[in-house]
Structure formats: structure tokens, C-alpha cells
């Protein structure tokens, strides 16, 4: 993975010195909260319901075991022994003190980490496919480009006061695991007709109160123009994005109001007159970045393992975990393991400091000391020898991290909701826990197959409910928490936005309603037909009739 050089270290030192000064000026009352707000937000520090919340960047989800241990140390030293992995592949601390923030950031800097641009109206942490570099369906590893983009977007002088936040995602695979079409700006590595690899550029996707699937701005640009083309898109957005209404300020509204043709014309005109040819990437720079993301020293391993095959035969629980949490690796004899952070009784994405230390140890022992975070709030060990899977599974179970539910009903994406967040209309974590409790029969959940259920506590959609096969949205009805159900959303290649089923349900009625939705699926599905395909075939009506039958 990427290693800082003296320039990166120097920049981070200077940043932490600057923020320490800003915090001290705030504590002395020399700057008002109104002025401090955008400064702290540019550094991931939110004022939540009960305390400050700090969001730490995990660029494109890559973590070393040493970084994970430091995150655990910070959870103990500055927080309450736990932390929360987010839907932007980041990590959040819920209880840091403003006075201690500068020291916390210095501790992060020791492992080349920071909280730069994890909030605010700027370019946020860049996300990518959690299987980058190891997936079998990859055209090219997107991480070198994500790092190039990270550096270019860090403290960009022109684009730090945008109309609204700005999220960028990369994928290099044929299957989109990074929800690229739901980003402000998305880059897909694709081949053109001549077989050359470049980027397809998408813009204007997003969730929130006006969910939109991104549109293609350019079918193909050469890799060398990644930054110049991105700069033109950012410039058009900075100049013309709406600033009169924060709910209409995202780039998706600009693309929608201008229309994709006019937006493309503006971008291309700027691009043809690019401000600096020096932005054009050369082969040497791309090669320099690629050298940070080379494959580890894989051994020549047999493609199958008898002990694993035997355990798959004899142990149903291992088989369920294997089918759900293990993904084929591009190198024979290796596997990609997803560690589910969707454990019954625990808020989705939460981990304790002790678990974080233990996971770091597992990464050292089984996966070349590296980890990835996923936008679905799980963790990944990307390079596990096949023969070690039974041993790893047993250790994960002992850590209460053996949940066999990746991409299943209980692999719920969930925002912090009204338990933490001042924007929320309703609690979301207790609903996810009720669902985990209700559907605690592993065989039943396993039989349901791929079923993505996402929960947001308000229309800002941090829990990605629009992209859930089943989405739950918290709404406020005269001071009471109610929940709407959407059906048919999808984050992948077939990206779609879920449709609202109808009237909202009370906190008591929402889980029974979800049960009815699942009953309708079970009664209607054809052999091997997943929920989403079934919904797309039979439509909303059968679900609606059943769920509202008694009302």
C-alpha cells in the first residue's frame, strides 16, 4: 500500500500544527463557533447530539495492521474503547474532546493517517472496490489512481469551498462493488474499442432527498487525463452549482438542471482550455504509484484443499460462512475473506478496541498485514491461503466476528440515527437490532440468499436506504418515529433507486411489515431467484397488498 515520503509527512505535520492553532484560538474564544465550524468540518469534526464526533479517513479503505492497532489505541486513549466503521470506508469516534483533538491527530499522523476532508463542502475521502487488486474480474487495479486523486484533492486551493460535499469513487472491475453510480463523480476503468484502458467518467449520482443514478459524461478518456478532466468537472461545479439552497447544492442537481449534454459541453470547453498541461499524468508517475500497490509474495499453492473440502461437507455452519463471506481470489490457493461487522446485539459497523487489535493480529498472521474496509461497513482480509480458512474461521468465531451473513438480510447498512446524530428523525440502530433478533435463524437467512437491507434515520440517506433491495427510512410524524419502506434499490451495475411502498409504519409495526415483505418473496420466488430479481419480475403490488392487508 501507499507509503508516505518526506513531503507527505511534512504536509501532515503542517496541517496538524495549523489545526492545533485553530483549536487553541477557538478555546480562547478568538474565533466564533460559526467561523470554527467550517474549519473543524474540513477536518472531520462534527458536533453531534451528545458530543463531538471525529471521522478519520481511511483512503480507499486500505489499512495496515499497524494502523489498525493505532486506531484501537486511540479508541482506548481518547474514546470509550470502541469505534464505528462508516459507509465511506472511514472510521468514526463518538466521544473525543476538543481539547484533546490536536494530540489525537498527532497520534494518527504517526501511522500516516488523518481526518483531512472527511467532512465539509470539499472533496471527501475517495472510495473504491474493497476487492481491488485481488478480484478475478478486474481490468486494472484502481488504487494507484485513487491515491493520485487523493493527493490532488488534498487541500485543493480552488475546490475547498464547494457548494456542497463531493464524493468520488473508483472501480477497476466489471462488477461495480463501489456503488460508483451513486457518487458525485465516478471513474470506471474500461477498455475502448481499440482495447486501450482508460476511464469512463460518470457524474451526478447521489442519495439524500433527491436520489439520482449518475450519468455518463465521457465514455472513455485516456488515463493521462484523469486529473485534468476531473479538474474541469470540479470547476464547472464550483462555478455553477447552486449555493442558494443547500438541499439543491449537490452536483446531481446541476447535472439535472443543465441536462447532461449542456453539462458535458461546459466541462469539455473547460477541458479543451485546460489551465496547466502539467496536470497530464505521464507513464512514470503512474508507474511510481503502481509500485506501491504490487502483489504480495504469493506462494504457489494448490487450487483446492482437502481439509477445507471435507469441512465444507461435514460442517453446515462453516459452509454457510464460506458461501457468504469468502470470495474467490485471482491467485489460485488464496481467498478473500470478509469479516462481517453485522453482529447481533451490536450496532452495524461498531468494533471494540480489543477486536481491532485481534483483527490486526489476524491480518499479520493470514493476510500479509493488510486490511480493507468496505462501504457496507465490513472488513476484508484480502489474501488468505485457502488451507487456513478453517483456522481463521474458528478464531473469528472466538472474537464474536464469525457472522456468516455478507450480502444477506442481516448484513444491514445502517446510519448512526437519532441515538447519535442531530439530523436524524428516528433511531436506526435499534431497528437493525430488532431485525437481527427477529431473523436470528441462520438457516432461514441463508436460504433467503442475497438480500440487501439498508436503514437511514432521515432523508439524508447516510444508511443508503435508496440502494437497498429493501430500504427503511426513518421519518418524523408529529414528534413520533415512523418508518417508510422502499423496495427495488440496487447499488451495483444495475443501479436503481428503491420505490416507496406506501404509508409509514410505527416502530412497533416496522419489523412485522418487513416479515410480510419477505413472506411474499418466499411465496413467489422461482428456483434460485434472488429477492431483487423477484421484485423486478412481480412488481410492487403483491408486496403492497400483503403488507397493508390488515390496515
Amino acid at each position: 500500500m501507499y507509503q508516505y515520503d518526506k513531503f507527505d509527512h511534512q504536509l501532515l505535520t503542517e496541517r496538524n500544527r495549523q489545526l492545533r492553532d485553530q483549536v487553541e484560538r477557538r478555546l480562547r474564544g478568538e474565533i466564533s463557533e460559526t467561523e470554527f465550524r467550517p474549519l473543524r468540518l474540513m477536518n472531520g469534526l462534527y458536533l453531534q447530539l451528545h458530543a463531538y464526533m471525529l471521522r478519520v479517513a481511511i483512503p480507499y479503505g486500505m489499512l495496515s495492521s499497524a494502523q489498525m492497532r493505532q486506531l484501537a489505541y486511540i479508541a482506548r486513549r481518547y474514546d470509550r474503547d470502541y469505534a464505528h466503521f462508516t459507509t465511506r470506508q472511514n472510521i468514526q469516534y463518538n466521544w473525543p474532546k476538543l481539547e484533546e483533538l490536536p494530540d489525537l491527530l498527532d497520534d494518527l499522523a504517526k501511522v500516516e493517517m488523518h481526518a483531512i476532508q472527511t467532512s465539509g463542502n470539499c472533496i471527501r475521502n475517495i472510495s473504491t472496490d474493497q476487492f481491488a487488486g485481488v478480484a478475478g474480474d478486474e481490468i486494472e487495479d484502481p488504487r494507484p489512481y485513487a491515491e493520485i486523486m487523493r493527493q490532488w484533492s488534498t487541500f485543493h486551493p480552488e475546490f475547498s469551498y464547494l457548494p456542497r460535499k463531493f464524493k468520488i469513487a473508483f472501480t477497476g472491475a466489471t462488477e461495480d462493488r463501489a456503488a460508483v453510480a451513486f457518487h458525485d463523480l465516478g471513474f470506471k476503468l474500461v477498455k475502448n474499442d481499440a482495447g486501450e484502458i482508460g476511464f469512463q467518467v460518470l457524474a451526478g449520482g447521489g442519495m439524500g432527498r433527491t436520489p439520482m443514478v449518475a450519468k455518463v459524461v465521457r465514455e472513455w478518456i485516456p488515463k493521462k487525463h484523469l486529473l485534468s478532466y476531473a479538474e474541469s468537472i470540479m470547476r464547472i461545479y464550483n462555478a455553477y452549482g447552486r449555493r442558494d439552497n443547500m438541499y439543491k447544492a449537490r452536483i446531481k442537481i446541476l447535472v439535472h438542471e443543465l441536462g447532461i449534454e449542456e453539462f458535458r459541453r461546459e466541462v469539455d470547453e473547460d477541458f479543451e482550455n485546460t489551465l496547466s498541461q502539467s496536470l497530464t499524468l505521464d507513464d512514470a508517475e503512474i508507474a511510481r504509484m503502481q509500485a506501491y500497490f504490487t502483489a504480495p509474495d504469493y506462494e504457489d499453492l494448490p487450487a483446492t484443499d482437502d481439509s477445507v473440502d471435507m469441512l465444507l461437507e461435514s460442517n453446515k455452519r462453516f459452509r454457510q460462512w464460506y458461501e457468504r463471506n469468502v470470495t474467490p481470489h485471482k491467485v489460485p490457493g488464496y481467498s478473500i475473506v470478509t469479516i462481517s461487522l453485522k453482529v447481533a446485539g451490536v450496532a452495524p459497523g461498531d468494533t471494540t478496541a480489543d477486536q481491532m487489535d485481534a483483527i490486526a493480529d489476524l491480518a499479520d498472521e493470514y493476510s500479509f498485514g493488510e486490511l480493507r474496509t468496505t462501504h457496507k461497513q465490513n472488513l476484508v482480509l484480502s489474501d488468505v491461503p485457502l488451507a487456513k480458512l478453517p483456522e481463521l474461521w474458528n478464531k473469528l468465531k472466538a472474537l464474536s466476528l464469525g457472522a456468516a451473513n455478507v450480502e444477506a438480510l442481516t448484513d444491514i447498512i445502517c446510519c448512526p440515527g437519532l441515538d447519535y446524530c442531530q439530523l436524524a428523525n428516528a433511531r436506526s440502530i435499534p431497528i437493525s437490532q430488532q431485525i437481527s433478533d427477529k431473523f436470528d435463524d441462520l438457516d432461514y437467512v441463508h436460504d433467503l440468499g442475497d438480500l440487501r437491507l439498508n436503514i437511514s434515520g432521515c432523508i439524508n440517506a447516510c444508511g443508503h436506504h435508496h440502494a437497498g433491495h429493501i430500504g427503511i427510512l426513518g421519518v418524523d410524524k408529529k414528534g413520533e418515529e415512523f418508518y417508510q419502506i422502499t423496495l427495488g434499490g440496487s447499488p451495483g451495475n444495475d443501479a436503481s433507486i428503491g420505490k416507496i411502498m406506501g404509508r409509514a409504519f410505527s416502530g412497533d409495526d416496522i419489523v412485522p411489515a418487513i416479515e410480510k415483505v419477505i413472506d411474499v418473496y418466499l411465496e413467489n420466488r422461482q428456483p434460485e431467484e434472488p429477492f431483487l430479481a423477484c421484485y423486478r419480475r412481480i412488481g410492487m403490488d403483491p408486496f403492497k397488498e400483503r403488507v397493508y392487508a390488515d390496515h
Partner: protein
Amino acid sequence: MQIIKDRAIVEDDWHHVENGEALPDGKIIVTLDRWREERDALIGRKNSGLGIQLSSDQEAKDIADDLEHFEVVSLHFPVFRDGRPFTTARLLRERHGFAGELRAVGDVLRDQIFYMHRCGFNSFVVREDRSVEDALKAFDDFTITYQSAADEELPLWRRRG
């Protein structure tokens, strides 16, 4: 009034002319509307400097063909969060080659000045309730910059060496 110009505190000798105000002698900065209405009269003034001020919704291309007439282009930040003048500044410097004084006015605060400087601003009318001396420290916030911009032709990766 003291302002920052070329990283030093100096006395400002430019006068911002309101739209209805009669044109005084001396160095004046006028609005885009005034420039469009009284272009010939403004060009015809003798022995006196001329500058123009753009609001944040006015663009570099609005004055791109007229830049030879202006010693100063002043860009107004109605609120520090309005980032449009950053783009306008870079376009004036890097696309349209404006070499005169590029001035930031309005909600100009220490914590944005480093970015303004990088985008090509070289003079700063710091908000009047704030210390100009304090704002001067902003130029030293960072010695490392990743990007090319008006102040730096090459991105860091071409300078790493």
C-alpha cells in the same frame, strides 16, 4: 486603511466607487455594471488608475477581453464559504493572463488566505474586525502543496525529485 499586498502590510490607496457615486479623481475601483455603462468615460480619465470589482456570481469571461484597462481586479467574497472567486481568480491568472493586482475583498479571513494566495490573489482587504497582522501569518500555514495552481506551475509529483 491597512491591507495586505504582496505579503506586506501597506496603506490602501484605492477607492471603491459606489454605483450612484460621482467618479472622483485618483485610483478607483468600479463595479462591472458601472464599467459596462460608462466604459468610454472610465477609459478617458487621465492620470488615474482604474480597477474593477466582480461579485461572486460574475465570471472571469465577463471581463476577459477588457483586462488591459484594469490595474486591479477585485473579487468579492459575500461570505467566506462562497468558493466561486477561487475559480474566477485562477481563470484570470492562468487562462486570461492577468498580471495586475488581484484583490480579495468582503469576508476575507485568515483561514482562507493561504488558498486565495494559491489561486492568484496577491492583495487582501481583511475583514475590518480582524487583525491584519494575524492574517499575515496565513502565508506560512503550509510549505508543501500537492497541486499546480496560480502560485506553482508544477504539481508535487513533478517536483518530488
